[in-house]
């Protein structure tokens, strides 16, 4: 455990004492803020239209949770596919390039400890990104309560589950990302391989559209992006949790295997 913490601390410092994390946060805030503004202004336009036409029954469906936050989370989920490889690409590849890999591999730490320490550090970056997303509902509830719109209230429970879901989604992307990072000593190749892996797991979901029966369900289940949906509705389902944890375990296991086996070559 001490070893995991030592490795975690080192990675954490490198993320937060170099520009890496801040560039990621900056770009993430910019893009997610843009998503938010787009979705929110669309929501406003629609609300106004319904108000004008006195479509009260329609207005009932217009709530911030379903109309703004849910789409925002789902969009960010896709955006994570692009952001997370950037976070994980250096984790192992850079150690190889810098030759510090030899230090790690000849220190009394196990491969699992190295993998876990590094992985947890990448999760801390993802956690901050998820927290950034929570700025938007906070803005909504602040200005919403002032503006006096009847639709301006926010339910926090579904947001909490969405946050958990988004974090788990990010965590499973990162597990595949660290695996990609263990395959090479080039950060660029590492990033490209993880994009590739993540996209593959995404497009599996598209294939389900054309499939039938069991196969359709299986393909849908395998898709990386199908599992956030329930979370954004405020539902935490065992099958989704199992899915995310399986991907995480799978990714970390492959990483550990790849590190151990490379030494045999």
């Amino acid at each position, binding site marked *: 455990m001490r070893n995991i913490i*030592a490795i975690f601390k080192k990675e954490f410092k490198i993320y937060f004492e170099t520009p890496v994390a801040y560039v990621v946060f900056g770009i993430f805030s910019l893009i997610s803020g843009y998503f938010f503004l787009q979705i929110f202004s669309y929501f406003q336009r629609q609300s106004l239209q319904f108000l004008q036409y006195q479509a009260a029954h329609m207005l009932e469906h217009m709530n911030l949770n379903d109309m703004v936050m849910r789409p925002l989370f789902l969009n960010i989920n896709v955006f994570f596919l692009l952001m997370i490889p950037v976070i994980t690409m250096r984790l192992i590849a850079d150690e190889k390039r810098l*030759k510090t*890999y030899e*230090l790690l591999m000849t220190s009394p730490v196990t491969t699992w400890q190295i993998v876990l320490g590094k992985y947890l550090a990448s999760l801390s970056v993802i956690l901050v990104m998820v927290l950034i997303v929570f700025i938007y509902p906070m803005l909504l509830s602040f200005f919403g309560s002032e503006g006096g719109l009847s639709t301006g209230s926010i339910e926090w429970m579904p947001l909490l589950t969405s946050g958990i879901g988004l974090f788990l989604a990010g965590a499973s992307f990162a597990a595949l990302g660290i695996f990609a990072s263990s395959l090479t000593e080039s950060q660029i190749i590492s990033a490209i391989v993880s994009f590739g892996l993540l996209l593959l797991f995404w497009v599996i979901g598209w294939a389900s559209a054309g499939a039938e029966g069991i196969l359709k369900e299986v393909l849908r289940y395998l898709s990386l992006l199908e599992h956030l949906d329930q979370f954004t509705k405020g539902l935490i389902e065992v099958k989704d949790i199992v899915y995310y944890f399986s991907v995480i375990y799978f990714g970390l296991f492959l990483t550990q295997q790849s590190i151990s086996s490379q030494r045999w070559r």
Partner: protein
Amino acid sequence: MIEVKGLTKFYKQIRAIEDVSFSVEKGDIVGFLGPNGAGKTTTMKIITGFMPPDSGVAKVAGFDVFESPLEVKKRIGYLPENPPVYNDMTVYDYLKFVAEIKGIESKKIDVEIERVSESCGITDVQKRLIAHLSKGFRQRVGIAQAILGNPEIVIFDEPTIGLDPNQVFEVRTLIKELAKEKTIILSTHILPEVEMTCKKVIVIHKGRIVAKENIEDLLRRRTKISEMTVRVKRFSIELMKQIRDKFNIKVSQPPELENGFNFELENQEDRIEDIAKFIVDGGYGLLEFRPITLSLEDVFRELTTEEKTV
């Protein structure tokens, strides 16, 4: 302390080392000598548990490197060919990280960092980013990292590479200092380094061990053809010719030797006495009569140019 038997390692088709065997006793300081590409780094990577051999075994302090890697790694401090430092960290943070993964107790870490920083002369750069250090200082940080936690065995892969002459001297002094209480292997292709710091030497060439012994023994034993030099008061070419014909040996007169000459003996050491007697009895006024010792450099060249195995 370290026992290596029959190590062989291929990188794809390239044979890096073949059937490398040697042992290092506790307290030894061994020079691992060989030209570029000889397989020094490969052997060290195997002993430190960085990678396994294709065949053969390596044991450190009785533990097999690949059966109990953690036990072995705990006991070894290793300076790889390139100092394994993180550019984005300060020297202090880096050493602290290394101390933590080496499992040094948290309370003792600062004292330990101070100790190694002092002996490597990096106390003043503790707060600097490693990226901003000169090559020599990065190397010192690498050395500090290796001796952190006071490991029983220290393995240095070309420790003085990239250092200026003063630093080279300091590092060698430091290594000698360490040698008092530790088992050390250091690789190098610089001969004087071995002569200066090591008691034993292992010579490796094209992946094979060509010699392993005490430096003096090596020098002595390789002197198969012993060359002697003679200086006398009353020198004449006649004397040289007489000795050549009487003893049937090769003689020569190097230009720098005005009143003397050299002769070669091939496993005929019992004749040395006769030759000396001949000169003394002849009344030539013997001034000097000594063997010409081969330098380690000559031995090295000899060992690594003929493909002879010892």
